[in-house]
């Protein structure tokens, strides 16, 4: 199809599609008037059933934990695949790497920010099932903090901090732990992913049964996955910057 026939065909179709979607959303309850049973019931029973104050976290890690299992594996597979695709093409030549930031004050300020960001990320993970946050959000922040090492210091330091093989172990291990915890319940005669730990006191860090464990397994996997992902993409840039 030439670009000249493509655009009119698309515009006509897109107008039709927009009309159809509009026809569809017109059947929804007006914004703010929703009262479907699923979330309503959960909002009422979570505190009693799970001792978790953040209902979203309880849904993510427990009620709909099976979706999250798929999601964990998706992140895991995508990062493994990205690494595979990028490494395949990268020329296997010795690399001389240029540091990206030369100015000393910038570097010092950047490095000073590293522990702050990482702590922030850990905080977001730790309280994720009590207040907004959780393993995914916090894990991403921790990985971004580690990345600051790269931006502020130097590529070699980042590589030393995050050797690929070790990160692989954490990435696979975090995902495996998530599945293994679910299978563990099965071995104990419970349903797959059923909670087998005491629920604890409402609002405490130890509340929620297996939710904290799943939360931390997620955090480890997500951190490792993003560290690996950033590392692979930065490596791509570094390969090009090598002199000669």
């Amino acid at each position, binding site marked *: 199809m030439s670009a000249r026939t493509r655009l009119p065909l698309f515009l006509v179709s897109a107008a039709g599609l927009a009309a159809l979607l509009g026809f569809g*959303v*017109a059947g929804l309850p007006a*914004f703010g008037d*929703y009262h479907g049973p699923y*979330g309503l019931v959960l909002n*009422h029973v979570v505190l009693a059933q799970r001792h978790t104050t953040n*209902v979203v976290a309880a849904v993510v890690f427990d009620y709909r934990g099976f979706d999250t299992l798929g999601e964990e594996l998706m992140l895991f597979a995508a990062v493994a695949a990205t690494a595979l695709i990028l490494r395949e093409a990268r020329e296997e030549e010795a690399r001389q790497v240029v540091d990206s930031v030369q100015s000393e004050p910038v570097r010092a300020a950047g490095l000073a920010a590293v522990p702050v960001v990482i702590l922030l990320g850990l905080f977001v993970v730790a309280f994720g099932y009590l207040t907004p946050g959780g393993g995914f959000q916090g894990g991403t922040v921790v990985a971004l903090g580690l990345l600051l090492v790269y931006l502020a210091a130097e590529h070699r330091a980042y590589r030393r901090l995050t050797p690929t093989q070790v990160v692989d172990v954490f990435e696979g291990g975090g995902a495996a732990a998530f599945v293994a915890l679910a299978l563990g319940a099965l071995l104990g005669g419970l349903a797959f992913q059923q909670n087998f730990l005491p629920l604890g006191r409402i609002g405490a860090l130890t509340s929620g049964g297996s939710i904290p464990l799943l939360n931390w397994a997620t955090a480890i996997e997500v951190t490792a996955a993003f560290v690996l992902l950033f590392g692979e993409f930065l490596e791509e840039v570094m390969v090009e910057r090598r002199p000669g």
Partner: protein
Amino acid sequence: MSYLPYALAVWLLVVGLYGVVTSRHLVHLVVCLTVAQSSTYVLLLAVGYRKHATAPIFKGIPLGTKATDPVVQALTLTDVVVSVTVLALLLAVAVQVYVREGTLDPDEIPAVRG
């Protein structure tokens, strides 16, 4: 007016499609793809919103307070993760295509066809 959020979702999906179809560069195209995907976040969260409700987090507020739907928020979280994984994966493939073929214009990439 009370259907504006849903209209936004429709708008983002169609606009993202438009960006993809008219794109001349794969990186641009993949970013447009994520714009189209953001329509689903908006739709899900808009559907689960309730007037005068708080977030479904009962820390320091009494049980039984009117709260928004937690399920759509969990679904959207999954959706956000999907979005970033697909973005990274497609960009990696795009980098590979560029290294091999030297172009990222969808109309010019050598293709199997016919």
